[in-house]
């Protein structure tokens, strides 16, 4: 569960890690960004991390591609700060080698012979350990006895790959039974399975995303990874619920409002209304299916005008209230 109180407890508590997944096209990057803004409210500092090299965060905020470096991307009116980081597996590996093995030149030599590419190709689990390892580092980093980040929000891989991505121990345990890789992945796994982590699944009220949400929740629960909320994105306002639309009535209304009331316009409007009603019915069935998953559901409204900073703030506000 999201718990603002925990965020306020200060240095003794590790930051909360919010992992945001969802089927491709559901808007998980947008939701992750809105969540990072929400958690920064009240003068806090959050880190928004992306790991898939898509530069989705930079595009969302209209910035140049992010380097492998934590940068401020936005703030909140009350002094909160959101920083963002695009993690690159190769850079993460070199940084890791430097940190733990003081490799320096040898690390660069590894890169030169393609060892990094090789290692992450032949053992894809290793790439995930590196990426999640970097996230773990950010979550637990302290400076002058205080946590650097009040919360870290991870824009994670989509539902189809999330189980494998987060189940780092199993993937690497097959390959490394002992040694530093094992130690590293055990450390990551411990954080991911602890109450400080929460995985949120973003969905639309559409068949495939709902199905994948149920599958992902089941998979992650089976892995012992804590599930947070199911976040419904782009939900429609309940309009025309139970209303019977007759063309005659619509024509009368249009006439009173001084709008065009020709046959085509009336038929067109009625068709639009009925399609909306159909969609609402489908959505309500799917909403019931989501309810059966047994996790708290938060709904974010569709923003027909597209996503901008005002839109992000609106979503952040709703998320904050749901915390």
């Amino acid at each position: 569960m999201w718990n603002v109180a925990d965020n306020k407890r200060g240095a003794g508590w590790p930051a909360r890690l919010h992992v945001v997944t969802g089927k491709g096209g559901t808007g998980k990057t947008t939701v992750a960004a809105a969540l990072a803004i929400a958690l920064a409210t009240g003068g806090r500092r959050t880190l928004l991390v992306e790991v898939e090299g898509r530069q989705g965060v930079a595009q969302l905020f209209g910035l140049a591609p992010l380097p492998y470096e934590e940068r401020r991307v936005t703030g909140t009116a009350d002094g909160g700060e959101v920083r963002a980081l695009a993690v690159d597996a190769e850079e993460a590996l070199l940084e890791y080698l430097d940190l733990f093995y003081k490799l320096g030149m040898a690390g660069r030599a590894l890169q030169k012979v393609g060892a990094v590419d090789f290692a992450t190709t032949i053992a894809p689990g290793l790439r995930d350990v590196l990426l999640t390892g970097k996230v773990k580092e950010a979550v637990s980093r302290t400076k002058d006895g205080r946590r650097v980040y009040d919360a870290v929000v991870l824009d994670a891989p989509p539902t189809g790959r999330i189980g494998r991505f987060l189940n780092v121990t199993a993937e690497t345990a097959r390959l490394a039974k002992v040694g530093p890789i094992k130690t590293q992945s055990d450390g990551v796994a411990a954080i991911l399975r602890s109450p400080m982590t929460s995985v949120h699944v973003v969905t639309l009220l559409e068949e495939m995303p709902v199905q994948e949400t149920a599958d992902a929740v089941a998979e992650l629960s089976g892995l012992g990874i804590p599930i947070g909320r199911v976040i419904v994105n782009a939900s429609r306002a309940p309009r025309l619920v139970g209303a019977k639309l007759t063309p005659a009535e619509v024509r009368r209304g249009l006439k009173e409002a001084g709008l065009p009331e020709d046959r085509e316009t009336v038929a067109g409007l009625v068709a639009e209304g009925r399609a909306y009603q159909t969609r609402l019915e489908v959505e309500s069935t799917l909403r019931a299916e989501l309810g059966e998953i047994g996790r708290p559901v938060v709904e974010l409204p569709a923003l027909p005008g597209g996503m901008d900073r005002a839109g992000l703030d609106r979503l952040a506000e709703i998320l904050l209230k749901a915390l």
Partner: protein
Amino acid sequence: MDLDGILSDPAIRTVVCCGAGGVGKTTTAAALALRAAEKHGRRTVVLTIDPARRLAQSLGLTELDNVPRKVSGASGELHAMMLDMKRTFDEVVLTHTDPKRAEEIFANPFYQAMSSTFAGTQEYMAMEKLGQLRARDEWDLIIVDTPPSRSALDFLDAPARLGRFLDGRMLRMLLAPARAGGRSVFSLVSASFSIVGKTVTKILGTQLLADLSGFVSALDSMFGGFRERAEQTYRVLQDRETAFLLVAAPEPDAIREAAYFAGRLAADRMPLAGLVLNRVTTVSAPAIGSAGARAAADETSAPLSDLLLIHAELAEQAERQAEVASRFSTEFPEVPVATAAAQPADIHDIDGLRRIGDEIC
């Protein structure tokens, strides 16, 4: 776009549908395949990667068995199959090596990791399966749905990446002792490698290196075959018998991906036939603008006010989508576009696929 022209053209033998995830790629591939079989009498197979359950059921795909099955609800010769990545990889191994060696490879933990999770394995295996289907020469037309990759480019790059990997310096270094008949992985490699060797040993540990070495030397016997197939696959994609169809929705991410992909196809001299734009919002009462509808909605009561708000939002959304879609057509004016309207309910039967086909063709 003349999609019917493409589907009926006997010179076109392969259609590859690609694009970002969540844009209706599988549905589009299935709808086109159905149309090719029913309307154009072509013996068609659709290779799907990860279809929605109900869509899969409607195509008669109840299990992932890597074998094309006839779709019973379709008139004409429509077959469908779902890709089994691991099994396809196993088949490739079996083709290129003797059964005893294959058993060794299958038992190696690195093979198990790579065949199930190698970044690009799914993409590579989809292309491998395409190669196999083409080689059998049983089909007039093969329609391929590409995997929901992190990037739509993954499947294009997978063959090359695999080739690079197999040719890589690292792999050759690891192989050097095996080829020389030596026992220790790094004993015979050059001095310049020794610092790297020590580092690798330190990080990975000796057991892991032994497994790795075993895997690499087992793979050694198949290198030639792997590389050759990877190159063949790539050439198949450049073939004039192939047509690429980009699938997108009028959303910024999907359009950006489609534009990136169109540029990439051109650079690789691969034949792009057009863009299918799914989930396009349509306005049925264009005589009323969004501002007028919003203003009037404030003055009236439900249900008319609701109806006017719905209309206003539709109009705003359509306007935004048109702007987003125009980013693609400004950059690639020569690429033809077909559109499909957003469906109020999900498509999961043959009739629905037929309607989609009618709409985009």
